[in-house]
């Protein structure tokens, strides 16, 4: 019974309900074109959510991801415009993302600052750097072979390549998080950092690694974003850190750390994406869309707390 009541299972069921309801009420919804698009639109958010899940499980957060994405996009644009080969640009930009993550991680682990504060700071800092790099210009005309990789579906499926990559990485992260000692140490850090430390877990090093991974993934998402839209701009991806965190929380990961599953997060990402797509197809205005997403998020944070309050009370009654 307890297993059925788990939040991530609920979110997954809600996802199925939304999907079934959508196919039933909106003729265009379940079409291959639309699903492929809706999935493609989630690519960057989904990828970043993988890294964010591990961070939040370990009771940290990285709010600078969208700014790293923007900086990465600006760099891609500036270097491409400067005549550098895209094959050189991509590893260089991803490396920059790793450095951005390293800075976050060092500030958090070496100086002991709270990650919320640090990454609010670097959120502004990295976005500012993006504008320094590219100003308010837009760079376009990327090689079609590469933009196709960011847009096209894997042949024979409605799954865009970035989503295929996401699936692959999700399997890796899923195994690491749920089937390895390293994964368990993340939960331990999130649940009781000091206990984890005394149990021999190298808390600081692990956290540092998580921030580096987060920055790296965000920068790679920036490359995908740039190629998908065919337009490099410093303001690319502004605000998507909120969508990522919304998906992670909606997926049942506890913001205080130590709880949550990757499956829940994936269901959360899909739920937010499909719901938005469905509301748009139904001509629901942007304001109502954000109200729906906002309410969903509040419910997702509130419900587990209420359940944890109510459950002991229920057990107490004979």
């Amino acid at each position: 019974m307890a297993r059925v009541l788990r939040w991530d299972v609920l979110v997954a069921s809600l996802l199925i309900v939304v999907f079934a309801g959508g196919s039933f009420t909106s003729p265009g919804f379940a079409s291959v074109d639309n699903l492929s698009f809706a999935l493609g639109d989630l690519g960057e958010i989904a990828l970043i959510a993988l890294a964010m899940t591990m961070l939040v499980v370990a009771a940290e957060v990285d709010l600078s991801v969208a700014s790293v994405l923007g900086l990465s996009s600006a760099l891609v644009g500036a270097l491409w415009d400067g005549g550098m080969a895209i094959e050189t640009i991509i590893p260089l930009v991803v490396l920059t993302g790793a450095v951005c993550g390293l800075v976050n991680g060092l500030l958090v682990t070496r100086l002991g600052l709270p990650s919320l504060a640090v990454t609010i700071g670097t959120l502004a800092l990295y976005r500012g750097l993006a504008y320094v790099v590219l100003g308010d210009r837009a760079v376009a005309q990327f090689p079609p072979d590469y933009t196709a990789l960011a847009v096209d579906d894997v042949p024979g499926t409605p799954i865009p390549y970035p989503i295929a990559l996401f699936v692959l990485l999700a399997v890796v992260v899923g195994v690491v998080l749920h089937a390895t000692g390293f994964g368990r140490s993340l939960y331990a850090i999130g649940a009781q950092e000091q206990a984890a430390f005394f149990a021999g877990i190298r808390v600081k090093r692990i956290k540092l690694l998580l921030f580096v991974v987060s920055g790296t993934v965000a920068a790679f998402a920036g490359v995908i974003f740039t190629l998908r839209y065919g337009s490099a701009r410093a303001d690319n991806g502004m605000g998507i850190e909120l969508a990522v965190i919304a998906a992670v929380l909606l997926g049942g990961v506890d913001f205080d750390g130590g709880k949550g599953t990757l499956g829940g997060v994936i269901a959360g990402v899909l739920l937010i994406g499909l719901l938005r797509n469905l509301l748009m197809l139904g001509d629901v205005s942007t304001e109502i869309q954000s109200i729906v997403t906002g309410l969903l998020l509040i419910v997702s944070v509130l419900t587990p707390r209420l359940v944890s309050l109510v459950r002991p009370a229920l057990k107490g009654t004979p």
Partner: protein
Amino acid sequence: MTPMRLTAVAALLTLGVAACGGTTKSSVTSAPAQAPASSAAAANPNAPLKQGLKLAFLPKQINNPYMTIVANAGAEAAKEFQGEAKEVGPSDASASSQISYINTLTQQGHDAILISANDPNAVCGPLQQARAKNIKIVSYDSDAAPECRDLFINQAASEEVGRSQVKLLADMIGSKGEIAILSATANATNQNTWIDFMKDELGKPEYKDMKLVKVAYGDDDDQKSFTETQGLLQAYPDLKGIISPTTVGVSAAARYISGSKYKGKVVLTGLGTPNQMRQFVKDKTVEKFALWNPKDLGYLASYAAAALVSGQITGAEGETFKAGKLGERTIGKNGEVILGPPFTFDASNIDQFDF
């Protein structure tokens, strides 16, 4: 640290290998540009406008009064040919936020999408997908990349904007005296093009008694434009008129003049919006100013979309179509249709506009 070091070495190696060759900007742009998708069907100028057309306006962002006026006028035009038009769009004007809407409109099976593009290239892919489904694309206000749309309704041909500003001022000062220009930034593309046409117009014999003494730059910053105006009037006591072809500049200049001793002595005109300029027209600081008429823009865009869908035009240069009360319009080069000379606002008509 060994694994980390290994990773770094591997990354550097990759860089080194990649740097030796690869896909660069020059290798891409030297390839022949993709020809604009041309419609196989020939234009039939006598085809009747189809009825029951579904048009969708996708502005840069919703809840923007200017954009809403355009879309509403488009919807009114659609009623004239028994069609319907709606306005949908994102709440922020970022480059990527229009993309999901283009996809949605494509799925909903509209006949035409009318878009004011936030980014000419970012919208390109989805617009091409829409066109593949035989949806016509008309851009207005802010163009998409030309290969991704059928028509662009250009609200302001640069030449007409520049020349008409000089005419407007000349009428009010009797084509005589010193004048100045208060522009945006020194490298603003639009403003500089207009100013070049203003200078060209001033070279004509009928303006021989008008002398441009200074082009000042207010950087589209309210405060700076305000002080630049002050500076101009002090430096050139004989100044008769100022043209400020930027909405920020003209309203800041008007605010300075309305509270100074120059009110009624120096004529100010430019490109402004009715809401920003209303109080200065009412207090007689400004007699006339110009901007395109957003209602006509939406109206023309609607008719252009209907003409495309009905097969009257394909978007090729030289084709003509009837745009209701605006009369016959001709498609210029690059698939552009020009709205016409800027619209002049004065005390008699300013209250009909709210943007």
